[in-house]
């Protein structure tokens, strides 16, 4: 026959049970573990059959309550010595007289609730409720520790974000580039002083974080339309770089390289855009200069190549003469032909003279590429008068009538070289007058397509249009019988080019005269241009 189970509620004080149950609901109001302990210890000590109680919290160095000494070494030793997973504190003796309930959850171990039992018979009725109270306490502790850990992690993260943001801010601020970010609602969010100051300078607005682009650029519709387009592309996910010129006055115009790129969140969605603008005016100028220099170098290299070819070719010719006649001289000396010896010597000396002249001319040409004197201001008329007085003998000898056009233009350049241009051209015209019964040379200038074009026109022998491009070549002589080495026009061309100009010849044909035109853009003072 089965014995009916004992009525465990017999003799129980339900008020005590109510207190223990209520305590579970009240524990959460105590912010500190110490006060939880101070509340629980007298409460549990009042449970029938209980002699004394302690609460040991892992976080606290000392336990709270009255269970001491031989019963719980957790209280006496360091907490590190107590097994965190043990159901009872290490060193706990007198089993049966002391209960130690671990304050433990799946997430961790937080301490012990320790009860010294005075009457096992009485206490056993309430033990499940005490155990439940311990469980409730453990859950509260776990929640708090988790919240504290989360709070600490959050604070750490916030500190880190703050630190990184400050560092990034310093980097952005220290940049000379114009850096700005915009959110997806077209609001300027983060920008550095460089961007702010330039924005203020160009658009006259004191930009503040959060300002809408629509409002900030409302007064400049064109700039707004352009900015809207660029930022819009970046906000649509495009990453691109453009070069753009800003500013109205030619001298104020500045080049900028603008880079736009989208800002994405961890899922890849565009949440804003960033702009980095860099002033590249100097770079652009340098690039243009470099291109110009490169062309000049190419041009000069080609010219040097031609020069070397021509010089070596022309210098070779008298050398051959010298060599040949040295052979003849040797033979004639052996034969004792005195008349022939003198003839041989004349050829050799003639060839040597020619070589000297050629070399002098080469040196002169090389010098023509250099500005020898500092630039001075001189009128065209003054220059012409100076040259005419220099070549007066030659002009008189040739019987040439020289006329100088009206008007005046002021030149600013190497006076000696500029005079050399006119002198060579006058000399050239005199040289190629041919049989002209009324030789005439006209000197002047005229405006053509916005520039001042100088000319020296004659009614001499002229030249075949097919040869017009060759006349400025080194040692180039259309008429081999003509005096000189053929270097004069090459020198003229070099001087004109040094002054940024160009030179060309126009002739209706052989026997119909020729006109040499040239420009000197670097030497003509803009204010005097085309004054007639």
């Amino acid at each position, binding site marked *: 026959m089965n014995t009916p189970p004992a009525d465990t509620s017999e003799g129980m004080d339900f*008020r005590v049970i*109510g*207190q223990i*149950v*209520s305590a579970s*609901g*009240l524990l*959460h*109001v*105590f*912010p*500190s573990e*110490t*006060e*939880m*302990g*101070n*509340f*629980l*210890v*007298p*409460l549990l000590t009042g449970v029938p059959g209980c002699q004394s109680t302690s609460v040991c919290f892992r976080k606290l160095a000392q336990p709270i309550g009255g269970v001491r000494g031989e019963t719980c070494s957790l209280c006496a030793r360091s907490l590190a010595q107590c097994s965190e997973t043990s159901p009872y504190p290490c060193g706990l003796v007198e089993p049966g007289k002391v209960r130690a309930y671990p304050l433990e959850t799946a997430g961790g171990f937080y301490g012990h609730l320790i009860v010294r039992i005075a009457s096992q018979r009485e206490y056993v009725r309430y033990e499940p409720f005490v155990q439940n109270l311990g469980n409730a306490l453990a859950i509260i502790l776990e929640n708090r520790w988790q919240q504290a850990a989360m709070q600490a992690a959050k604070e750490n993260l916030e500190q880190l974000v703050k630190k990184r943001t400050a560092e990034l801010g310093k980097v952005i601020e220290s940049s000379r580039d114009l850096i700005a970010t915009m959110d997806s609602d077209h609001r300027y969010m983060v920008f550095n002083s460089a961007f702010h100051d330039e924005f203020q300078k160009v658009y006259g607005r004191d930009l503040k974080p959060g300002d809408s682009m629509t409002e900030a650029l409302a007064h400049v519709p064109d700039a707004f339309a352009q900015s809207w387009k660029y930022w819009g592309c970046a906000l649509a996910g495009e990453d691109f770089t453009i070069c753009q010129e800003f500013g109205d006055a030619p001298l104020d115009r500045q080049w900028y390289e603008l880079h736009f790129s989208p800002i994405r969140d961890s899922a890849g969605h565009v949440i804003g855009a960033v702009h980095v603008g860099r002033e590249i005016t100097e770079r652009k100028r340098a690039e243009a200069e470099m291109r110009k220099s490169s062309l000049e170098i190419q041009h000069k290299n080609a010219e040097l190549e031609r020069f070397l070819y021509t010089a070596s070719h022309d210098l070779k010719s008298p050398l051959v003469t010298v060599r040949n006649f040295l052979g003849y001289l040797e033979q004639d000396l052996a034969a004792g032909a005195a008349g022939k010896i003198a003839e041989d010597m004349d050829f050799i000396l003639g060839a040597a003279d020619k070589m000297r002249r050629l070399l002098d001319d080469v040196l002169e040409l090389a010098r023509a590429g250099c500005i020898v004197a500092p630039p001075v201001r001189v009128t065209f008329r003054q220059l012409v008068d100076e040259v005419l007085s220099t070549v007066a003998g030659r002009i008189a000898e040739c019987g040439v009538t020289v006329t100088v056009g009206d008007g005046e233009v002021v030149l600013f350049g190497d006076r000696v070289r500029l005079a050399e241009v006119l002198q060579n051209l006058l000399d050239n015209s005199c040289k190629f007058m041919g049989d002209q019964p009324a030789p005439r040379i006209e000197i002047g200038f005229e405006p053509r397509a916005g520039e001042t074009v100088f000319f020296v026109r004659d009614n001499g022998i002229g030249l075949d249009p097919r040869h017009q491009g060759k006349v400025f070549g080194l040692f180039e002589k259309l008429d081999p019988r003509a005096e000189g080495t053929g270097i004069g026009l090459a020198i003229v061309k070099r001087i004109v080019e040094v002054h940024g100009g160009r030179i060309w010849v126009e002739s209706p044909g052989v026997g119909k005269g020729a006109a040499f035109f040239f420009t000197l853009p670097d030497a003509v003072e803009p204010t005097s241009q085309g004054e007639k």
Partner: protein
Amino acid sequence: MAQTQTGSRSEIPMTQMGFTQETFPAGTHMCLIYSQEAERRNIIGKFLESGLLAGEKVAYFADTLSPDEVRGWLRDIGIELPDVDGFSISDATKTYCSSGEFVPETMLDTLRKFYRQAKEEGYPNARVSGEMSWALKGIPGSDRLMEYEALINEILITHPVTAICQYDASRFSGATILDVLKVHPMMVVHGQIVHNPFYMRPRDFLKDFQGRP
């Protein structure tokens, strides 16, 4: 509304607390043990408002806030306090320790007078709520607070002033809170009023309290 006479609990009317649907007899003595200020303000605000709506005489004893700050807080949560004699906010320390020290008998007498005055002025009921942190200031006699809290339960039988005593669990010790529970027959837990299993009859509590080492 039933007329109230002193001396018999059976004649005591029921009253609303504002923060719970249940009605309770006038003269209910409750403790609110809290650690969240927002929770306290919500419960006490509704408690005061419901008393005013019921036309009761209401008094509030403020300690952490000035009377003006209390009015501001109540206004912030949407409670407009009528500028009438029926509502007063006073400094808790001055109210509980009018002579510069805390004498339970004096304060109990003040409560009796408050109730009598309310009845004489025609109010159907009276209610009070006090912030009890004044007792942590070391004012002479403040160690007799629990004695007062126990004795008030006997006074409220004949002078049924509905009362909520506010105890901040972050400022009072756990042991004191356990005593607070022993002297309030009802307690407010999670916004609900519940019978307090810790409650001891005043004479039992006083015997235990005075017998402590």
